[in-house]
């Protein structure tokens, strides 16, 4: 699953640690999310979407072909 976390975070001028503090997770989780190594739970996805004021599907892009490869 692709995501626009890095892009949105940079737009707001937040560091990875700032985003982690706001979302209540570790900085390592933000690093893993941004690099696409980790997919968030639905709760964390909602929390991140609220932080950025965007709908979930505009932040996390589900690519069915890639997921089922």
């Amino acid at each position, binding site marked *: 699953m692709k995501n626009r976390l890095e892009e949105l975070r940079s737009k707001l001028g937040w560091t990875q640690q700032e985003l*982690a*503090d706001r979302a*209540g*997770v*570790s900085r*390592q*989780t933000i690093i*893993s999310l941004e690099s696409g190594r*980790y997919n*968030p*739970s639905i*709760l*964390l996805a909602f929390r991140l979407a609220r932080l950025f004021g965007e709908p979930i599907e505009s932040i996390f892009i589900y690519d069915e072909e890639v997921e089922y490869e």
Partner: protein
Amino acid sequence: MNKQTRAYLNHIRLGWILLAAGALFFGGGVLIRLLAGGAGVNPKWFETPGIFLGGWGIILLARYLLAGANLQAARRLAAEESDERSRALRVRAGNVAFTFWIVFASLALVGYSLLSMGEAGFDELWLYMALAVILPGVIYTFSLLWLNTRH
């Protein structure tokens, strides 16, 4: 009080409880050694868990009380503890350890049985080894059943 502050305070409370339990166990062991001269009861049965529990408590208290001096650091520590990725990684690491343990214990049991040319049956070591294979499996199965009813 938010979730992270509550988690932070719970860890400090747990640290004090462990330290107190450790002191009680260790003190009990020392008392048995001094008063009863260890007659009938091995004081190490109390002193060893006392050191373990007390050490665990001290580590928790040192970690959280030191972080507590800085609110931001305390929040980050609590966030790291409840972090969903860290939890998922701990679960996976636990699964790997469990699989490794079952394989290792089973091989050891089979090896011991083979080495004793089938004579090992109900000697103490064989029973402990069999228990080391069966017990984790039983706990795993019942945990799965219990978790299935809760989630």
